[in-house]
């Protein structure tokens, strides 16, 4: 049985709060840019950029990052087409906010950090996530979190469903039956739960 953790209103409120916190912590929008991790983080980054535009009137550039080349687990995956990284700005000297949907082991973020560092030297890097479900395997924390949700490491899956992908906005928790994820396997676009 599936349990809804956040509905569309709650997701929107979380993103509004994260947008305000980003502006507050960085004392404005100067030099800011957002990088969404494919696939879940990209739409959220765009929504946050829109909210900042509405409140601050500032255009924050948004990039879309595929971390396949930097993962530590791609060898156990099915061959699949690599997503195209789209970074319409130079990260050099920027205040970069990485955006992802579900924050779990931290391995995706480690990969994203390496990928970004190979593109240039940002002034600083922060992390914004919609859901923090715990169970970190690396010393990485979020600067902005929409909601902290305690989960079972092995037996549950957290999914963020968004309008942009043809769903109704919601965050759901589903039990993992049969083949669960193995210990040490990082979150990813397929099994981020």
């Amino acid at each position, binding site marked *: 049985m599936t349990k809804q953790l956040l509905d569309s209103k709650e997701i929107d409120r979380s993103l509004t709060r994260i947008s305000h916190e980003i502006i507050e912590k960085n004392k404005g929008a100067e030099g800011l840019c957002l990088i969404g991790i494919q696939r879940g983080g990209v739409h959220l980054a765009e929504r946050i950029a829109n909210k900042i535009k509405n409140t601050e009137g500032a255009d924050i550039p948004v990039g879309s990052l595929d971390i*396949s*080349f*930097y993962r530590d687990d*791609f060898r156990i995956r099915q*061959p699949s087409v*690599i997503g195209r*990284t789209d970074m319409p700005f130079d990260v050099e000297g920027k205040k970069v906010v990485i955006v992802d949907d579900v924050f779990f082991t931290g391995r995706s973020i480690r990969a994203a950090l390496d990928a970004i560092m190979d*593109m240039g030297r940002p002034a600083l890097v922060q992390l914004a996530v919609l859901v923090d479900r715990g169970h970190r395997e690396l010393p990485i924390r979020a600067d902005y979190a929409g909601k902290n949700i305690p989960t079972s490491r092995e037996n549950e899956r957290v999914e963020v469903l968004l309008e942009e992908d043809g769903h109704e906005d919601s965050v759901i928790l589903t039990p993992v039956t049969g083949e669960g994820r193995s210990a040490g396997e990082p979150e990813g676009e397929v099994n981020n739960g």
Partner: protein
Amino acid sequence: MASVKHLLGIKELSAQEIMLYLNSAGSFKDILKRDIKKVPALRGRTVVNLFLEPSTRTRTSFELAAKRLSTDVINFSAPSSSILKGESLLDTALTVEALGADIIIIRHSSSGAPHMLSRHIKAHLINAGDGTNEHPTQALLDAFTIKEKKGGFEGLKVAIVGDIIHSRVAKSNIYCLKKLGADVRLVGPATLLPEEFRELGVSTTTSMDEGLEEADVIMMLRLQLERQGKGFFPTTAEYFRQWGLSKKRLETAKPDAIVMHPGPMNRGIEIASAVADGDNSVILEQVTNGLAVRMAVMYHLDERKEQ
């Protein structure tokens, strides 16, 4: 998708498998445009270039592609190898594998050499040209270049011109383009263009004007000059008059036709300098795309561990 452990030829691939490589290659090309032209994707892997036939371009391309993926690369070439000392190809390959090779890239003058090795070798094999059989990564990089320039393959008119019979590049391209839905015609002197090729679903003609008519893509092949004087064609000057790509001839094709050549070129023999360096030429882009496609091939083969 059926997992294919080796890349032996395009003949053995499905259209879906080909598109996996083509769709990923763009992401690898992006890496080549960055300041740091390297990703850690295949860190710790060992790639061996086993080139038992002279080659600089292809070997260099594979070597650089492998290095861009953070692998360690060893080059093993004919003049310096133990093959000269009488070792068999299989023994050489087994030795290379025992050294810890994860991917072996092989070029050999005998058709089918990589296929023979694939029955004995656990490492991933990539065929970098076997006799007159296939040169699959060349076809993939050509297809990727066409996709970038033309958007797709369905109904695209592609003319492959020149020394078809001796060309593994032509053969791999025919398999590849047919699987992707292009309309392929072969053009060349009858001595270099056997009728049997029609069995592959392509049309053939000895007339350059007929072959180039309304073409979207013109793929020139290198005239293998070592064949001169063996009765395949009278002289190189006569060859150029009949089957060379001059500026005037190019006008027969569509105005936005692209001109391709796998290299090395014989300027003034199969292609005029004005065309090779002209606006329709994508010859140097093919070289860059070769790196991206070879990275994609190594990356995706490495995903397929034990079967």
